[in-house]
């Protein structure tokens, strides 16, 4: 092993691959806290791994893993002390970037006039996300398209996003409901991060291979001792990721999926899934890309002061599509179809990418275990109209 250097004179650059040891990760977190970043990361709470404020690596779920299946989530003890030996839980990073409840502005009545007061431009919380998986990097990028890349920009999202430090973690052990490989969103974090960590436990001390993604990532890392990654470590990381790709819990065939769903609005599978769907909206709450919201206008008892709040909403609610005395999507069948068709098909026409990143949360947290990959496969299996451009088999 090479000699460790502290506060190395050699500057780190984007694209560099280095290794840091366990305690250095703690130093890195401390360094971020010292620079007024609110560090949030995975922690065990009430039987699940959720994203909360973390102050040191001792807050992380060391030695825990998760077992996920349709409608099932359990934590189990690992045989090692891996800090990131699980996948994703019920929280996603939208909890911080796009808060579930947000006051948009206040208004005051003065006589017949009214005065709108934007929420005081407080210093935006600077977040550092620790443990962002590849699928989640894609999910953040998907929400960026909604809130930053359209005609209108959400100023709060923009400032939270721009000050954000993203510390990604490569998944080396996919979960039971994971299908990022099918959606081309993982398991390897390819871009969109400041630093990407791959946890290594074999052939040496507990350490992390770190890919430097941006100048900001290089700055953050330069405060801790690092050494250049050697071949053996790089190979171990590559091998772990290749294994992960081969052990996905689920798969989803995305070939022509947009057209498939567009021509199957009346497929009987929608009736089948409706027999189980409770319209509970869990899937939309846990989905990292779902962005629907509603606004609530409230006044105090005097009626002189009003506030407007934005809250997360779900297309599964009966009133979601209410106009003129009735809802357009009055039946649960129509609402499930809306959610799934949006996620896998219309999203592509709207934003140029799929709305699904293959994280599997909707499968885990559905109380009846509805599986989007199974639903898509069922529709594909008895597709009402075969694409006419399919090549014939066995033609000379």
């Amino acid at each position, binding site marked *: 092993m090479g000699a460790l250097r502290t506060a190395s004179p050699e500057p780190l650059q984007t694209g560099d691959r280095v290794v840091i040891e366990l305690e250095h990760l703690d130093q890195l977190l401390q360094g971020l806290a010292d620079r007024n970043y609110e560090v949030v990361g995975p922690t065990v709470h009430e039987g699940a791994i959720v994203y909360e404020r973390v102050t040191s690596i001792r807050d992380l779920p060391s030695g825990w893993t998760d077992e996920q299946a349709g409608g099932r989530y359990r934590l189990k003890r690992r045989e090692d002390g891996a800090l990131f030996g699980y996948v994703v839980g019920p929280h996603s990073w939208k909890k911080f970037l796009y808060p579930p409840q947000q006051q948009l*502005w206040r208004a005051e009545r003065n006589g017949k006039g009214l005065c709108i007061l934007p929420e005081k431009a407080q210093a935006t919380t600077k977040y550092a996300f620790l443990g962002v998986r590849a699928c989640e990097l894609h999910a953040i990028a998907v929400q960026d398209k909604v809130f930053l890349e359209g005609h209108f920009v959400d100023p709060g999202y923009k400032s939270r996003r721009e000050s954000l430090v993203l510390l990604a973690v490569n998944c080396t052990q996919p979960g039971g409901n994971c299908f990022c490989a099918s959606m081309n969103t993982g398991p390897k974090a390819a871009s969109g991060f400041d630093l990407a960590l791959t946890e290594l436990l074999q052939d040496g001390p507990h350490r992390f291979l770190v890919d430097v993604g941006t100048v900001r990532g290089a700055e953050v890392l330069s405060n801790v001792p690092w050494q250049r990654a050697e071949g053996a470590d790089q190979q171990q990381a590559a091998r772990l990721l290749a294994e992960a790709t081969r052990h996905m819990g689920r798969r989803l065939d995305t070939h022509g999926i947009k057209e498939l769903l567009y021509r199957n609005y009346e497929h009987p599978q929608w009736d089948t899934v409706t027999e189980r769907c409770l319209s509970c909206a869990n899937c939309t709450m846990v989905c990292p890309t779902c962005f629907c919201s*509603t606004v609530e206008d409230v006044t105090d008892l005097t009626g002189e002061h009003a506030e407007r709040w934005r809250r997360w909403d779900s297309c599964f609610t009966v009133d979601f599509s209410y106009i003129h005395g009735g809802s*357009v999507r009055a039946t649960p069948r129509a609402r499930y179809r809306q959610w799934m068709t949006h996620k896998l098909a219309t999203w592509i026409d709207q934003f140029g990418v799929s709305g699904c990143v293959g994280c599997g949360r909707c499968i885990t947290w559905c109380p009846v275990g509805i599986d989007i990959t199974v639903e898509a496969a069922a529709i594909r299996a008895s597709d009402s109209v075969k694409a006419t451009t399919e090549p014939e088999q066995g033609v000379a």
Partner: protein
Amino acid sequence: MTAGLVPDPMLPTPYRIQRVRQETDDTFTLELLPEDSSHRFSFEPGQFNMLYVFGVGEVPISISSDPDDVPLLKHTTRVVGTVTKAMRQLKRGDTIGIRGPYGTHWPVQEAVGRDVVIAAGGIGLAPLRPALYRLMAERERYHKIVLLYGTRTPEDMLYRHELEQWRGKFDLEIQVTVDRAASSWRGNVGVVTTMIPRAPFDPSNTLAMICGPEVMMRFTVMELVKRGVAAERIYLSGERNMKCGIGFCGHCQFGPTFVCKDGPVFAYSHIAPILGKSEV
């Protein structure tokens, strides 16, 4: 970086009510001017604003004034829920909040050199009125202009006085019909779609703009297509639940479109596959 550097599209601008006009028993028009006289606002026919009633809520309403009259704005709306009911109680001098203008607009420019058919049903005439103002402001650029207007009863007709004025002043063919009428009504009775087959326009060179209940629009489209008007030159104004008007809340989705930004004005050819599909 603070949020102040990017304009917040969720902040309404205060507008003061200049006049409240009762149009029919459940429809009224607000005439508005911005509180801040230096506030600049311009819009295209077909666009809508989000109107905020203090402490009650916000609703999307099409602009129904003359685009050349800005900063004066007029909004004609029907009392259908909590917010519009509260809005109806407002008086001259009261203030509301406005965000906008949002959405796509009627293709008035594309109608140059063509016959124009405007088919309105009920309150659907309100979002079309700005287009009519534009057409009449440059009447010579268009060929035949035909307005077909249908309402439930003669008492539900909007802008009757103005319609009479237009009939007299401009080369504008106006045909009205009602679904039901008392015996004193001497005009057409029947759904507005029945006026399409014999309306005086050349289908091979016509642009149509339609606004009204969705069923009315669908069948009007059918009659126009039957007469040979091109699908790409038939435009409708859609409507869906809106909470933001700016593409963030997700409520107004209609298939792959957001009615607030891909609409409300749609070319029929664009939405034909989903128009009329149940619960989409």
